[in-house]
């Protein structure tokens, strides 16, 4: 029933809600102070208010009306010309002071008759509870108010600083048709905000926690990436594509399958980023656009690195997306990445590095689910993904399995340091390929003016994976 929904004007939010909040129902917006409840309520208010179906915004006993309006004016969508014409602010606190809860119910009914609104906001609804002399009294008030609101063709938003657990015990949650929770979860020195649809009658919705930011344009939501696994894995087909390094293509049995995910693991400085650049520029030279999503090298550092290899940062088939790992929100990051990939019509993507992204994730399970969904989505679209993964332990690859990499990557290439008698050198091994026969040797490689060059000789297994001394 797409014609019976209250829309927010922000498509990702409406998508998460399966089209929107119930158009003739009661929706609770819950969350602790500072999570943006009033902002989202104002967003709905200004998006839906029309002179013939106005929005009425009731403040109650928690925040003075003047403060709500003053704050509202700092938001881009606040339209001063609409106030008094299609948006009406009223103070229910004064009504409550005079006539208690019964007075509140009667006043709301009178406003419905008089203004014939399409949207009624009560902020804060929770604050009304203190007016009841008993639980029974509050339930009676709720029953009456819900009855009146249901009999009238209007949506209503009940905003309240409810804690999560209250949803199970407070009677207002039983009469609500939809419950949307806003929460802030501490992550190191930062806070991550999440929106969570707890209930939505008569409609499907996108479950789980969706990251959001509060901006002057209102709440900006980044729907959780949760793709269902494609049946039968990624489609094998077409021609193999180059890694950008001919000798490595040979080791992989002819290159990578399009749509595959490849993990490049290795300690710091072992050449993972350069291998990623080979992958992108090797594709770009063949007319296959690529996106470098880096959290490691900022554009200046990347320009310097590319300059050494004779590649320009501003290549028409290369899009660089740099985000500082310090303040990223992975849901927002992936939203930006998908946007960049779509814009560039990219068929290759490098993510450098996985560890930086993981630091931005709230928990490991969530992060694995997120990476898996991202790899699945690219795979379905035939976009080949290369991910760098830093192993902190200089000579060990044991962390690879800890991280359940096999789940994520079709191919795994491990870079390592190799000790010979005089100096340290680099080595490379293909330890896993899906749907290919790979060459199992460990090959020495060097990084020169042309990037990575593989040596002809294989290194005996014993010489690798042992620390110096």
């Amino acid at each position, binding site marked *: 029933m797409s014609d019976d929904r209250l829309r927010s004007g922000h498509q990702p939010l409406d998508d998460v809600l399966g089209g929107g909040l119930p158009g003739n129902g009661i929706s609770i917006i819950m969350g602790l102070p500072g999570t943006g409840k009033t902002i989202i309520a104002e967003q709905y208010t200004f998006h839906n208010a029309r002179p013939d179906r106005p929005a009425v915004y009731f403040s109650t006993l928690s925040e003075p009306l003047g403060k709500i309006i003053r704050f509202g004016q700092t938001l881009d969508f606040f339209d001063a010309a609409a106030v008094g014409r299609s948006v009406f602010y009223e103070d229910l606190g004064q009504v409550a002071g005079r006539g208690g809860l019964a007075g509140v119910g009667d006043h709301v009914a009178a406003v419905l008759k008089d203004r014939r609104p*399409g949207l009624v906001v009560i902020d804060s609804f929770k604050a009304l509870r203190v007016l009841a002399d008993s639980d029974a009294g509050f339930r009676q008030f709720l029953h009456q108010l819900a009855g009146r609101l249901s009999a009238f063709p*209007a*949506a209503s938003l009940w905003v309240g600083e409810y804690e999560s657990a209250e949803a199970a015990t407070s009677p207002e949650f039983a009469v609500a048709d939809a419950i949307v929770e806003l929460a802030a979860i501490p992550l190191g020195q930062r806070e991550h905000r999440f929106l969570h649809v707890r209930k939505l009658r008569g409609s499907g919705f996108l479950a789980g926690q969706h990251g959001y930011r509060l901006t002057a344009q209102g709440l900006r939501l980044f729907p959780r990436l949760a793709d269902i696994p494609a049946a039968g894995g990624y489609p094998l087909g077409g021609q193999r594509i180059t890694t950008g390094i001919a000798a490595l293509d040979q080791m992989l049995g002819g290159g990578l399958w399009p749509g595959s995910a490849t993990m490049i693991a290795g300690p710091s400085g072992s050449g993972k980023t350069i291998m990623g650049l080979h992958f992108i520029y090797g594709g770009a030279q063949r007319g296959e656009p690529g996106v470098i999503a880096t959290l490691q090298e900022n554009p200046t550092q990347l320009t310097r690195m590319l300059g050494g290899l004779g590649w320009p940062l501003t290549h028409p088939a290369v899009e660089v997306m740099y985000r500082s790992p310090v303040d990223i929100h992975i849901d927002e990051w992936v939203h930006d990445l998908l946007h960049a990939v779509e814009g560039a019509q990219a068929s290759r993507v490098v993510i450098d590095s996985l560890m930086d992204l993981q630091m931005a994730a709230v928990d490991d399970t969530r992060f694995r689910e997120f990476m898996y969904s991202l790899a699945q989505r690219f795979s379905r679209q035939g976009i080949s993904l290369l991910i760098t993964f830093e192993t902190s332990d200089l000579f060990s690859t044991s962390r690879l399995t800890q991280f359940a990499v096999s789940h994520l990557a079709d191919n795994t290439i491990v870079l390592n340091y190799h000790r010979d008698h005089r100096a340290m050198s680099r080595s490379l091994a293909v330890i896993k390929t899906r749907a290919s026969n790979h060459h199992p040797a460990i090959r020495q490689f060097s990084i020169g003016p042309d990037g990575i060059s593989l040596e002809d000789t294989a290194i005996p297994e014993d010489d690798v994976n042992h620390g110096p001394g």
Partner: protein
Amino acid sequence: MSQSDAPAAGERPVYSISAVARMLDIPVATLRTWEDRYGQVAPARNASGHRLYTRHQVEQLKFIRAQMSEGASVADAHRVLAERIETGEPLAGAAPQPGPRLLIQLAESDPYAAEFEEYFLKTEGFEVEVTLSESAAREAFTAVAPAVVIVEVLISGGTGLELCRLFREQDGTAIVVVSAVEAMDAAIEAGADAFLRKPIDPLQLVSTVRDLLRSSALMAGRSSR
């Protein structure tokens, strides 16, 4: 509610063909013939094939009738209508008929809905008799002889359609069936003149009652002749 995608109140199919025939004093057979011949005013059909007219369509038919009463042939009247629709020129609305205060009976199951319906009808100058049970509704119907009765399907646990059939047998009262569930087909089968889905838009309630009253007034005028 975001009404941008929802059909406007005037575009929802509401009226049965017999209600439209009474409202406009045009025989049912004529309405069918015009529809077949000119395809200009083509009502939606419900699952059982009954025609359901929107308010706009009633306005269009009213316009055709007005053109014909000014001497236009039926074909010309349809042609003028087509031109008006194409140019977007409004069809001149019929002047509201001042008349005696008419009585509307509500046979509601929901006291809150009754409160709003009563208020909006009274604001428009109607007298309203509110009944909240099947037995009270039957008694009042005989006692006050309403011009229009609004019947909720779920009154007294779900006897609204029975009430509708009973009221239909006593000719002369227009019947609007209302319900939160989509019961348009069942309502028309039971003899309702119009069906409104709840929650009811105040404007739609009033305009539906007005339209049906015009048909009653026409009938009253005709029987007194």
